[in-house]
């Protein structure tokens, strides 16, 4: 919260930042340090636990033949899904943002909504349709349909804010439409595509629920097995270190590919808005494609829920408890969304305005937890809090912190792009007009990055509302959320009773999903008015 409040420490922090030769703003540094500490907490837990079993045992665990299988399974799934998500995400975003698609506002929301459906509901929906569904292809299909919005969102936003002048220049230099798209447009949106792919990759590394359902064995599935059936924390943590290595490779890869070309257009210079392309004869196939995507990604899980609500005898009218559970879900998710958005501000500010090895490292670190199973993060917090902060243990605050660690990358992605657009020149002008740094922050920077903060809030909110494993470990005793109740009923085969909880979860997530897509389009429209 402190980052937003114009309190004295911020003022002095910023004053110092200004007063020195490239001195760092204290508040950002403090915020970045807190974020880094939170992220390092579960990592420290992993290393301590893995060490407990001794490096010999770790070696034995990691050099087993089955680890090679797991590695291959994990890598081939991650590659296939990431590529497919990139293709679907870019394609869908292009159709919505650059063509005269009928009902595009509707599509803009519908294409984001799959994010709001928890993995276990997706898996549940698919298995309801085809119980025999299992293995590699099933895993690739289900995860692609669940995760493509992580590419769609940043790419749609980048396309909406793109300067069409370059594309036109390319056409005038003799490139065909497809060549111009590939050589110019794709180049321009490539940071957004890569950022989205990174999120997809990390989410895949940590995924468990859906793979358990389709019986596809990845590292994370093996980690859960070690935990759940073997009660072998050390082995599970040793295996988790492999996930850390894989995600470090992904993070480094994205950084290398994206390079330094992250700077966004700053200042109000003139910008050409691309005219929408009439689809003409392509209308039907494009609509059919998007409908198929929406139908598979949204229709299957939602259909399964409706089926069970109608079919199951345990279906009851939603009681007061469902409202209480919804209330708790909203409360915790909103708390996590605020906290991680607030933490993402200094992390992004440092990485953009004070780019150096340390700040980039902090920003990269913030992505790591997303690749770790929620169970590992949660157990790390359990181990920490029972020893050093027992008062926090199983408190709402601890759960909120856990969500914030898990979903910090989503917040960073949202805030970073907005931060890149908020030019420091504007802050300087604000100060020369007699406003103190805190006032400038409130009256200039905050409104400028507000759309990014909104997107960050919404993404974290949705992900927190649908999180299950960490929730089961850390929720306050006696308090239920929609996810825990859904889980409790499905584990008793009371699908009819469980379905309304999942439906409400999707409904709650739909609001932020709608807000994200609205924000994007209004932002773009504001500029289009020119």
């Amino acid at each position, binding site marked *: 919260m402190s980052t937003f409040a114009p309190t004295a420490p911020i003022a002095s922090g910023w004053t110092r930042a200004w007063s020195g030769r490239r001195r760092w703003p204290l508040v950002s540094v403090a915020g970045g340090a807190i974020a880094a500490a939170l992220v390092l907490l579960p990592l420290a837990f992993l290393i301590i636990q893995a060490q407990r079993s001794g490096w010999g045992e770790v070696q034995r665990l990691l050099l087993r033949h089955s680890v090679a299988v797991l590695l291959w399974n994990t890598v081939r799934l991650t590659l296939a899904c990431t590529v497919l998500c990139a293709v679907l995400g870019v394609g869908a975003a292009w159709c919505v943002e650059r063509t005269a698609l009928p009902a595009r506002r509707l599509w803009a929301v519908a294409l984001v909504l799959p994010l709001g459906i928890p993995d276990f509901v997706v898996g549940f929906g698919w*298995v309801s349709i085809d119980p*025999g569904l299992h293995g590699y292809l099933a895993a690739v299909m289900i995860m692609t349909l669940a995760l493509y919005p992580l590419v769609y969102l940043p790419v749609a936003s980048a396309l909406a804010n793109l300067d069409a002048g370059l594309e036109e220049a390319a056409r005038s230099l003799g490139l065909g439409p497809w060549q111009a798209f590939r050589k110019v447009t794709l180049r321009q949106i490539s940071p957004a595509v890569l950022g989205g792919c990174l999120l997809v990759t990390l989410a895949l590394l940590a995924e468990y629920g859906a793979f358990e359902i389709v019986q596809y064995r990845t590292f994370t599935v093996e980690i859960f097995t070690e935990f759940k059936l073997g009660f072998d924390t050390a082995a599970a943590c040793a295996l988790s270190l492999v996930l850390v290595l894989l995600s470090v490779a992904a993070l480094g890869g994205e950084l290398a590919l994206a390079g330094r070309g992250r700077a966004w257009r700053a200042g109000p210079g003139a910008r050409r808005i691309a005219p929408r392309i009439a689809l003409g004869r392509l209308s039907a196939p494009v609509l059919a494609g998007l409908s198929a995507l929406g139908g598979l990604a949204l229709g299957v899980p939602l259909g399964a829920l409706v089926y069970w609500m109608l079919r199951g005898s345990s279906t009851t009218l939603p009681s007061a408890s469902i409202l209480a559970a919804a209330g708790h879900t909203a409360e915790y998710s909103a708390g996590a969304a605020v906290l991680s958005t607030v933490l993402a501000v200094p992390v992004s500010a440092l990485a953009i305005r004070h780019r150096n090895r340390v700040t980039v490292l902090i920003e990269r670190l913030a992505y790591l937890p997303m690749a770790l199973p929620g169970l590992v993060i949660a157990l790390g917090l359990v181990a920490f809090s029972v020893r050093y902060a027992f008062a926090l243990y199983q408190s709402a605050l601890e759960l909120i912190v856990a969500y914030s660690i898990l979903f910090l990358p989503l917040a960073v992605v949202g805030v970073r792009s907005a931060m890149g657009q908020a030019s420091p020149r504007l802050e300087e002008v604000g100060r020369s007009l007699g406003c103190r740094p805190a006032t400038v922050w409130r009256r200039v920077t905050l409104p400028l990055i507000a759309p990014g903060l909104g997107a960050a809030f919404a993404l974290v909110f949705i992900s927190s509302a649908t999180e299950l494993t960490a929730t089961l470990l850390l929720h306050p005793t006696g308090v239920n959320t929609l996810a825990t109740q859904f889980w409790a009923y499905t584990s008793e*085969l009371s699908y009819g009773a469980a379905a309304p909880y999942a439906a409400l979860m999707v409904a709650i997530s739909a609001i932020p999903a709608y807000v994200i897509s609205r924000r994007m389009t209004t932002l773009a429209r504001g500029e289009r008015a020119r």
Partner: protein
Amino acid sequence: MHRRTLASLSPFLIAAVTLLTACGGSSHGGPTITLYNGQHEQTTAALVTAFEKQTGITVHVRSGDEATLGNQILQEGESSPADVFYTENTPVLEALRERGLLAPVPPPTLAAVPSRYDSAQGEWVGVSARASALVYNASQIKPSQLPSSILELAEPKWKGKVGFAPSETDFQPLITSIVKLDGAATAERWLKGLQANGKLYPDNETVVAQVNNGESAVGLINHYYWYRLRAELGQGGMRSALHYYAPGDPGDLVNVSGAAVLKSSSHRAAAQAFLAFLVSRAGQETIAHSHSYEYPLRPGVSPASGLRPFAQLKPAPLTPAELGDGSEALALEQKLGLL
């Protein structure tokens, strides 16, 4: 006879504890214990309500998947807020016992149920039981075709017909049982055969649902999954039936749900009172009348109507304690790539 006496004493034990805690308790109406519940949530809720009414002790219930809760207790160690851990299966209790996290259960509580269903070391008590069984799709399999032993399911004639959930905590006891009764080599051969014949499902809920749908002809489950599915779908929705293996077959297993008090508990008396209540007549009746469809273990309490009487089950001669923490079974599954 002796056991009977002890068992019949348990209500008094509860009453005594109630009295003691009432005297020493706060003005808030008695002490509070925290229950980590891995069991059927609604049944536990009914038990807790009855217990609170009877004793005035407040129970905070934290429900979750038993394996997750077990891991949580391992991490919490000395500082665990849990007083009682109530689980669906015993391997997780055994795992905690091996790490010295459980407190001894007083003999009267242990004596309320047949001792073969208790921890050999007296650190957890058996509360209710499930029988492993075979669910079969009645339109695909005639009763005459049903196997008398679980071992037959590994034969080629069952190819493509068997559904099972190898990652469920109910599955490892079956492997352990075969290892103990027929040797590790047979167990491995059986598992390989099953792997070749079977369809893998994520959990038993899915197994029973898919056999009922006809996706698989037969499925390895515990009996109550079938009853719970029947409760959800109604008798009209059931296309399947239950089959029990021949008496003494390694597949004919009784899986026990148990409860234990944690050594770290600072409300041990109240926690032990809860364990005593679970195996008391009142507690066992509550289980029998709940929708969990489990067998109460206390002699003289009959199960929900429609269930095959507990006495008619002739399970393999293995105690839950002998089934251990399932690590051997797990290793075998991992070796064959089932996990």
